[in-house]
């Protein structure tokens, strides 16, 4: 994902507070040790219709199953999105579906970190701004295209309203440069090792 230029995507509103990572992908859908193919389990409780415990078809009423939203790349949600379990599968499932940005009032801490590590952009807007976008899209699905400028830290709605957002400069750098977290830290290995040397003396009880 190249974040240096503007990104325009279809936005799906899912305006529920506290959407937890069990909702984003239930445990039973995490079947393989692979990050690929997880979109099948994305929002599985909502994506499918069940009889007893068996899936019997797609839930036509679920927003991401609707034709106008089936290619969504931006998700719009409420407070505390991604709370709960630390499962990174939630992020991988969103990415596998094609989601590039989640806009919400606030995020679960671990989920937000997991997004940054995987190049998924999380944007916090106010309740009023989120409801404005939601109303706009409800009025007409033609309004579901939203423009995101990471460099300018700006969300632009289809009626050209501009909403500024804040982003951790560290995360912004990582997204823009596509830096690898681990490689980045391994460059500092000398500093880490000299800390360790001193710490082994200072806190010998902590070292096995």
């Amino acid at each position, binding site marked *: 994902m190249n974040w240096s230029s503007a990104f325009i995507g279809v936005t799906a509103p899912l305006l529920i507070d506290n959407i937890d990572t069990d909702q984003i992908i239930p445990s039973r859908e*995490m079947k393989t040790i692979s990050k690929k193919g997880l979109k099948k389990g994305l929002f599985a*409780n909502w994506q499918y219709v069940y009889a007893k415990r068996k899936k019997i078809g797609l839930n036509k009423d679920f927003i991401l199953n609707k034709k106008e939203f089936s290619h969504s790349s931006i998700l719009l949600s409420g407070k505390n999105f991604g709370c709960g379990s630390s499962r990174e599968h939630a992020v991988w499932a969103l990415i596998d579906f094609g989601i590039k940005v989640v806009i919400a009032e606030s995020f679960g801490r671990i989920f937000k970190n997991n997004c940054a590590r995987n190049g998924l952009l999380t944007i916090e807007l106010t309740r009023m701004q989120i409801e404005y976008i939601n109303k706009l899209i409800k009025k007409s699905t033609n309004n579901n295209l939203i423009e995101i400028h990471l460099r300018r830290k700006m969300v632009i709605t289809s009626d050209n309203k501009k909403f500024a957002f804040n982003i951790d400069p560290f995360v912004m750098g990582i997204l823009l440069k596509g830096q690898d977290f681990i490689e980045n*830290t391994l460059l500092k290995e000398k500093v880490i090792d000299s800390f360790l040397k001193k710490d082994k003396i200072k806190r010998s009880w902590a070292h096995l």
Partner: protein
Amino acid sequence: MPLTLFEKIWNSHRIIEGKNQPDLIYIDRIFLHERTGSFALKSLKERDLSVKNPKHVFATMDHIIDTFPGRGDETLMPGGKKFITTMRYLAKEFNITLFDIDDPRHGISHLISAEQGITLPGSIVTCPDSHTCTLGALGAIGWGVGSSDCEHALATTTLSGIKPKQMKVTFNGKLNEGVNPKDMMLHLIEKYSASGGSGYAIEFSGDTIHMMPIENRFTLCNMAVEFSAFTGIIAPDQKVFKYLKDRPYSPTNNWSENIKHWKCLASDDDAVFDKYIEINASDIYPSVTWGLSPEESIPINGKIPRANNLTNHEKNKDMASTLEYMGLKNGQSLMGLPIDAAFIGSCTNARLTDLRSAAKILKNNKISPNIKAICTPGSADVKKQAEQEGIDKIFEDAGFQWREPGCSLCFYAGGEGFLPQQRVITSTNRNFRGRQGNGVRSHLASPVTVAASAIAGKIVPPQTITKQ
């Protein structure tokens, strides 16, 4: 400058100060489990990276394995065996200590990390699991992360993060009869919302906490993540030092010197927190959740709030769909609501103290017919000790299944869930939609409330049974 307990530990682990960027923090111990740990190790291997200090890395099987007696690598979880065998193979390859299924030290990661003396006061421990905060009960920072951050910790012995804001939650006074730490957390979260702790590390303090046995403190810290906190922590005291002495991985040298050091970790008297919450213990009653978030709870003798009492329009909409899912109505009381199943287990409430207190209620009683009741002790050690005390017999005689340790029905672990629309009273931590199986209606409660309700066949407070 006066510092909080959390700040003292954080600062002593800071390798690089980030200024406006995250700090680079040294991590003392890493714990893995087969669901997310296998991912992290596999990814390291694919990238040809090594585990920097395998001596400080431990692993268990808890998330995928089932809890049936005589279990092996096969589980009902589709594709589950692969997670288990991969974890085993990679632990060996990376030279990591694995507490495998048949190991007497086996159990849920957060329980055995304490039981084995792997987590120590003043240390920072991580695990690709949100309930790592449980270990704050020992005066450590339990830092829950995702798989990528875990991989980072494995490869570098560090994590990067911005120091969270500081919150002090004080509980003072004596707890009412039948009130358990679970009720304390449900009360806190109901009052201040499921995102009330967002951005904060929380120190639990006050005389209620000081008087509390160590095992109960784990329950308190465990639920910090349900409050959206970075973590929960309690200043280490004599109870903690006594608990940790002579544990397999506890330090053997200079014990009294270590205690001296750990005692200094308490927050300075004049330390400044960014937020304070004070709760009077006598305001807390045995509670149960009615909705799909831990913030949606009421005292058992209370009533579900009416939608027209809530001001936020969107909240009303959520409430209608929540109540529809739960098969409940506005203003309804939960007292006497019939249940189909009861579960005692999980990293929240499956320690010896929990099982003992539930056994006290179950003794010489039978659960209501037609109820499925399951108990999974949190670790092999808890199970063994409980069996030595005859607790297993009490559970079984009452009609409970007595299982092997693991995460079990907290979230469909081992591929096992309850049936759609079944109403379950559960000692676990999350009443999320479908968490215990598609369409399942979960009501969080303390293990004593679960035990009492299982006997009654309906939701009742624990005193109902003890008073009989």
